[in-house]
């Protein structure tokens, strides 16, 4: 082992240490995070709803954003579109089949920052028993100290899912084959 390798190794080790991502827990308890969805109604307007119960964590370091990772667990049964009869239908076999598939999950595999400050978060989404790779467009909203002695970072993400790909074949019409997710994620640094 020559000196060059040792120095290179030391520099690399130093880089890794300084770039060690901070771990955050998503603030679902304070409801500073939300998983919202929109789907077109007949092509004439948008219906919006959300999943009320979820939890998750992420790690993120501004100096090395590419090392970021996220895991989120979602309870599909907590779907809420502000209409009991519709929510009952959404939980049924026609849509989320929550009795058979009580858990949904997103686990990231890569985080690719772009020059303009946005990023693409890639990962596997498990929904209705189907696991598929998806890309989420992410913008960072901000990070810093909160007034109560903690440290927070927050993002917004959007993505589009085709219902058919997750085994949801109920015919809502040609304008309503995709659902758009709008994710607000605020984490508290641990």
């Amino acid at each position: 082992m020559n000196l060059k390798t040792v120095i290179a190794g030391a520099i690399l080790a130093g880089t890794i240490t300084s770039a060690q991502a901070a771990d955050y827990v998503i603030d679902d308890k304070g409801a500073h995070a939300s998983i919202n969805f929109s789907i077109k109604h007949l092509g004439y307007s948008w219906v919006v709803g959300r999943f009320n119960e979820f939890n998750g964590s992420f790690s993120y370091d501004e100096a090395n954003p590419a090392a970021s990772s996220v895991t989120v667990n979602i309870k599909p049964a907590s779907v809420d579109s502000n209409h009991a009869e519709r929510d009952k239908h959404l939980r049924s076999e026609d849509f989320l089949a929550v009795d058979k598939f009580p858990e949904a999950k997103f686990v990231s595999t890569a985080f690719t920052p772009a020059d303009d400050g946005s990023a693409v978060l890639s990962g596997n989404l498990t929904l209705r028993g189907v696991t598929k790779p998806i890309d989420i467009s992410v913008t960072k909203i901000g990070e810093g100290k909160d007034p109560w002695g903690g440290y927070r970072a927050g993002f917004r993400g959007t993505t589009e899912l085709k219902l058919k790909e997750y085994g949801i074949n109920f015919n809502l019409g040609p304008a309503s084959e995709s659902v758009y997710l709008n994710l607000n994620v605020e984490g508290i640094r641990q």
Partner: protein
Amino acid sequence: MAIPVTDNPKSFGLGSILLHWFTALMIIGMYPLGLYIGTLTYYDADYHTVPYWHKSIGMILMGLMLVRVLWRTMNTTPAPLPQPKPLLLATKAAHLLLYLLTATTLISGYMISTADGRGIEVFNWFEIPALPAVTENQEDIAGEIHYLTATMLISLAAIHALAALKHHFIDKDKTLTRMINMRQETNQ
């Protein structure tokens, strides 16, 4: 002779007879209507109208059942026709269960539609307001109870009808005719 409206110890009056048959017809009609709702898809023309009828009829039935129970307590119910004791007990139990299943089905149906605080519109005529939800995802639990008790109710109603026919054709007593003809006196 005037038409007897109220019951007397020997026969049913017009009030009880009309209430019995109107509520019976509604209960019998509501079951296939409810099953049909479950088969509707988003682009069916009936997707909104049939549930609307089902809910409207349900609320009217709830009102009629309240009147029926009230009417029964206000009247002297004719004495049961002679039967062996076990059958007499079974008859009493079946009748009580018919009332209980009807009530449970009506209440659970109401609890599906009002789980989010929305009232139930009755034929664009008036609205029954919602009561606060009792539990989370009330519409799911109420929905399962609604289906279960409605199926039990329609099955028991079928047994009830068969029993009435048995009384009429086998026992040859006045059980069925006194629920049709208010002048039918039964000597007890």
